[in-house]
Every structure is written in structure tokens, then in C-alpha cells.
């Protein structure tokens, strides 16, 4: 069973977490200690500074470690900071980047059809997943409302919300799972007793991706929860890495 962490980062944010991971080396060491095989990673510069520098740093660091797969941030194609759409896709192909992250609040843009329509159409047709942090938008439930709007406009988009809160969000994300077959959440803060089991039984095991939220959260919490969840080993393997592995393998750049 491959353990493939879909949600972790390293780097130097302006306000460090209690225990940070400033370099990719620290992340790789912690993964080895926990027994996590692979991780989809991003350098903090992507969200703290700009994808212009962060994407580059992420790719450079991932090239040094087999266990790390790079993931990039997006910006509105209209301002041309990451090249036009064709150039951006070509760069993804060149650097083998198969997933993207949006930080609309931090980077001050609208994650809408007007702004991102061209990119999202490409992502839908190429199968590129988009990740969104649960606390990206400032209002209590804004990130879910945003996800709903995006999915209504682009139901074929693979959208994953990560690090949803531990204080019970099933009432927020389960309706999205029911309506949109390409919507998923990660397990990094899914601490609810019986939560993983219930999602497997109601929405199916493809709606969960293993994530750790490292370095903010210890790897062992989400890891032991998944290892011991009361689900079949086939479902466990899908959540642990099969879903993400399959998703990335289907990406056509």
C-alpha cells in the first residue's frame, strides 16, 4: 500500500508554525520516520510570496528527492505572470507538474469562470486536479461556497479541499460529495470518530485522499487514523494513495 500524502508543505512562511520544516530535506526525513512513501508538495513561497518564485523553488527541490512530487500555484492567466495559458501548460509538461493549487484570497483574485475559465477548461480536459485549503477564504464557510460555485460552473473539475477543520464539517462537504462526482477532501484533519468509515459507506472511498497537513499537524494522527479505520483494505489503499496515484496518472499534458 502506497502512502501518498496529498497535503504537506515546507519552506519559510512569514509566520512560522510552532514546529516548521524549512527545507525539503526536513520533510523527507519526517516522511521516512513516519513511513510515508511519497508526497505532493509545495514550497511555502507559492502561497506566501508568489507562484512566480514558489513554483520554481518547488520544482528545483523536488528534483532532488524521489519521494517528492511537485505541485504548483496558479494565478489569473490575464496578467501573464506565469506565461499565457499555452506557456503555462507547456511548463507543467516540462517540469512534470500534474496538480495545481489556488490561493484566491492570498493572491487577490476571483476564482471564477471569468478569471479562470480558460485554465479550468484545460484542467478539466487534461484531468489536472485543483487543491484548495479549507481556510483560504476568510468567512466561516466561504471556501465551501466558493467550491460549490466553481463546481457548478465546472462540474468536470477535480477539486479537493484540504485541511477541513476538525470541528465537524460533514454537513458542509457531504452535500458537495453527493452532487459533484469529482469533489474530494483530504484526511489530514478528519478526526471525527467513524468519519472515514461513513464516507466509504455512503459516498465511496474515492472521495478521500490521505493528507497530513505537515508541518502544522503531526503526521502520526492522520496516519494512525487511516491505518486503523474500520474499512476494507482495498478502500484503505485507495485513500492512502491509490486515488491520488490514479488521478495523477490520468493527467494528460
Amino acid at each position, binding site marked *: 500500500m502506497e502512502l501518498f500524502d496529498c497535503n504537506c508543505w515546507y519552506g519559510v512562511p512569514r509566520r512560522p508554525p510552532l514546529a516548521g520544516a524549512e527545507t525539503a530535506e526536513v520533510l523527507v526525513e519526517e516522511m521516512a520516520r513516519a513511513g510515508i512513501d511519497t508526497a505532493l508538495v509545495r514550497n511555502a513561497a507559492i502561497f506566501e510570496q508568489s507562484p512566480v518564485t514558489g513554483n520554481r523553488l518547488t520544482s528545483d527541490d523536488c528534483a532532488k528527492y524521489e519521494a517528492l512530487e511537485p505541485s504548483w500555484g496558479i494565478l489569473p492567466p490575464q496578467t501573464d505572470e506565469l506565461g499565457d495559458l499555452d506557456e503555462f501548460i507547456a511548463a507543467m509538461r516540462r517540469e512534470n507538474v500534474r496538480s495545481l493549487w489556488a490561493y484566491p484570497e492570498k493572491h487577490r483574485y476571483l476564482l471564477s469562470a471569468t478569471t479562470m475559465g480558460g485554465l479550468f477548461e484545460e484542467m478539466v480536459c487534461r484531468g489536472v486536479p485543483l487543491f484548495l485549503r479549507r481556510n483560504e477564504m476568510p468567512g466561516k464557510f466561504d471556501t465551501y461556497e466558493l467550491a460549490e460555485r466553481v463546481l457548478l460552473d465546472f462540474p468536470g473539475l477535480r477539486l479537493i479541499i484540504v485541511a477541513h477543520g476538525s470541528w*465537524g464539517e460533514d454537513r458542509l462537504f457531504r452535500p458537495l460529495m453527493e452532487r459533484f462526482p469529482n469533489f474530494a477532501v483530504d484526511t489530514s484533519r478528519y478526526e471525527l470518530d467513524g468519519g472515514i468509515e461513513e464516507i466509504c459507506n455512503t459516498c465511496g472511498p474515492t472521495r478521500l485522499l490521505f493528507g497530513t497537513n505537515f508541518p502544522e499537524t503531526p503526521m502520526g494522527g492522520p*496516519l*494512525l487514523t487511516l*491505518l*486503523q479505520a474500520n474499512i476494507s483494505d482495498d478502500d484503505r489503499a485507495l485513500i492512502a494513495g491509490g486515488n491520488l496515484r490514479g488521478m495523477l496518472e490520468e493527467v494528460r499534458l
Partner: protein
Amino acid sequence: MIAEGRLAREFAAHGRVDDCPVIDTHGHFGPYQAIHFPRSAPEQVIDTMRRCGVRWLVMAGHQALTDTQRGNAEIAAAVARYPDHFRGWWVLNPNYPERMECELDGFETQEGFLGFKLHPNGHETPLTDDAYVPVWEYAHARGLPVLTHTWQGEGMSSYREVRTVVEKYPDIGLLMGHAGYGDWEESARVARDHEHVYLELTAAYSVRGALEIMVEHAGSRKILFGTDHPWFDPHYGIGCILSAYMTDEDRRNILYRNAQRLLELPLD
């Protein structure tokens, strides 16, 4: 794998370790306004306990946070029905001061409760408010434990308010629920400086680095395991403790030894 050491290896492989039982000092019971619980029926809770090797769960009723009379009675019934698994925290609500005396009498006559649970934030009443004085007097005179919600931020339930209380009532076994969340080092110092103050880990374990600060400044003998169950799967908290940089001896102190000593619960 999770981390080095035998406990990590065995919890990862089997979900429980027979010679390392777990005492969950901070549980709840019944439905709650803000969350859907897939596993909150007593039989499901006991099944979770079995899977995770949790020997005892000490809980406060969700209903008791609003309606103390019905809520405490609900816990009394659950404890009476499952006396080998559950113990209760008797919830007191400072917003009904006229009931306080009668409810302290109720505690006196009820079996299966270890002490009191307070929730200053939920009840919007600072821990230093006079409304709690009857509780402190009662618990202090009898050396009873009190589990209180604690969280960072001045004026409600932070380490500052805890310090004010225990300086006046040093014999109360005071469990700082959530370990003073956010004020990690300051809260740990209060636990270190006051013999009967403990850091309880619910939700605090999921902040990477917090456990190491607590062990450094308070020592692993002043830390207790808890999960807010049915909110959180005990495996999540246990996994976080396995991840933290400490020894298996520290982990055993946290998972059961300290609670066994403080709450006098048998581990047969």
C-alpha cells in the same frame, strides 16, 4: 510505522497495545449542535474504546452543557449501565447560580462521577468569576478534580485565569482541557509550578510541536490524554503522541499512568 519505538510499531499494527492501556480523561456524550457524530451511541463508543485500547472514558454530557439536570442524569444512566467503561464529569453551569447548591448536592448523592466539568467559553463566564466560587470551595474541601475548558486569550479561560484560581485553591486537581490551547509554554509553566494542575491534550495534540513544549516545560507526568470523544477518533490523538519527539515512557505517562494516579481508576 509512524515513528521509532515499540508503541508506534504496535499501535500501527494492531490499533492497541495490551500493556499500554489508554485513559481518555475528556469525553462527551450525545448529539451536539455543531457536528454530526457517526459513532455516539454507547455501544459504538465502547467499540471504539476496544479498537483503540481505551480502558476508561470520563465524559461530560453535551446536553449537560446547556441543561445540567437532564444532561448529568443522562451521564449517570450511561455510567450505571456501563460501569466498567465510563465515568462522568458533573457539569455545572454558572449562568444558573440559583441551582448551584442543589446541583452540588446532586453530585454528592450520585455515583460514578469523578469531579466537575466547567466550560467558561461555552458559558461565556470567565473562570475567575464569582459564580464558580461554590464549585472551588466544594472541590477544594474534598480534593476533587475539575476539568475545565482552557484556551488562549486573556480574561476567559487562559493559563492566567487558571493560575488565579489555583493560587487560591491549591488542592484542587485542575485539568486544563486543551492544555490552554495556543499559550503552550505559559500553560505548561502553570502546570509545572502547581502540584495538582495538569495539561489535558484534546485538540492540543494536533498542533505539531506543542507536545514537545509541554514535556520540556511541565514534564510528561503533568500531561493527560483526552479526545473530546465522540468528536475525535482516539487513534488520531494517539498517533499525534506517537509522532511527537519523546520516549515511550513519556507516552505511557500521558496515555494512562498519570490519569490512573490522579483519578484512581483501576487498570485490570
